[in-house]
């Protein structure tokens, strides 16, 4: 029951950024709802996997691959390129606070007179998390094309 509430919360609040960013990318209006669906499913899948004990990088990778599969199904139905849905759908999983912490630590390191270990620690750990989550997102999204649609076009 508690898990269900968490998932509903996740689904709702990740559908909003998916639609918002889809509008920023000028996705046609009739496709906006599919961006929202893909975004919610991806974020919920990641939450479930992280609760199951998987590290955030691997769960992000798997969730991005799931989004890739779903958006290819949408693309086949509407005859539109899959990235049209997919990029907006992965936006809720962008590692925003990790990136923010990295940047702030680096700026503080620049301003300080001597090398402070806790700032360096924060910069490196948050920075590595940011880079690997971003890589997992984009490579995960490309997975269906790399594994299954090797020699033929998707649409």
């Amino acid at each position, binding site marked *: 029951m508690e898990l269900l509430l968490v998932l509903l919360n996740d689904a709702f609040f990740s559908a909003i950024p998916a639609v918002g*960013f889809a*509008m920023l*990318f*000028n996705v*046609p209006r009739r496709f906006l709802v599919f961006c929202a669906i893909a975004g919610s499913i991806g974020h919920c899948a990641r939450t479930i996997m992280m609760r199951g004990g998987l590290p955030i990088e691997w769960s992000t990778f798997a969730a991005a691959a799931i989004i890739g599969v779903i958006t290819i199904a949408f693309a086949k139905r509407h005859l539109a390129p899959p990235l049209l849905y997919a990029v907006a759908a992965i936006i809720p999983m962008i590692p925003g606070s990790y990136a923010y912490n990295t*940047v702030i630590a680096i700026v503080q390191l620049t301003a300080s007179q001597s090398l402070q270990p806790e700032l360096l620690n924060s910069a490196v750990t948050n920075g590595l998390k940011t880079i690997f989550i971003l890589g997992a997102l984009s*490579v995960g999204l490309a997975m269906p094309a790399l594994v299954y649609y090797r020699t033929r076009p998707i649409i």
Partner: protein
Amino acid sequence: MYADTQNDITRQVVRAAQLLLAYGAESDLVEELSQRLGRALGLASVELSISANALVMTSLVHGRCVTTTRRIREHGINMAVVCELQRICLLAEKGLYGPNEVRKRLARIHPRTYPRWALIPTIALSCASFCHLSGGDLFACLITFLASSVGMYVRLLLAARHFNVLINFAVTAFVTTLIAQLGYFQPITETPRLAMAAAVLMLVPGFPMINAISDMVKGHLNVGISRWGQATLMTVSSVIGMTIAMQLGGLL
């Protein structure tokens, strides 16, 4: 096929490829769509060489080659145009469209964008949702909403005045961070840090980054690296804007 016809078809195909690249399609899609469109319209083969800001295309019919180059200027991301071009390619492939119909439909493409009054509230709501998802409380979300709606307004204003995208991002990040600092000065929220982190998330260069990795993975290394560089520069310039704002607020 006459030489004139080949020239004309080559022009249509290279126009389609130019539009696809200018409005933010990945290189693999550009190559695939223009080759399919060319073959559907009767060319024997179409070869493309894509670089960061130009496009060279050669079409071959009956041993006669036509090579043409197009300069590409970035127009921002517009998926509606990419979607329309994909439609044209599929219709030509099914034999429903010939060169004349393709020319007419290509001439009719103009990039439509969402109006400002719709874009600003949705982006602000998106940033507020980011704040909520990362664990911010209600007032942090409200501060995020306020800051990012003002920031989005500035961003659209500067974009409409054709400022360089890097300047645009720096100024937008500055304004957004300046307003998002509110939580540090008024004790209304427990999580002022999350509000600041979420408000600038609207500047994440999502499309350039995904396109960059996707290009590099699929073998278009030079285009991928240039897009990666663009995304990095955009991030760095928003960091500069944030830093100046935080130093003004005395947080650094």
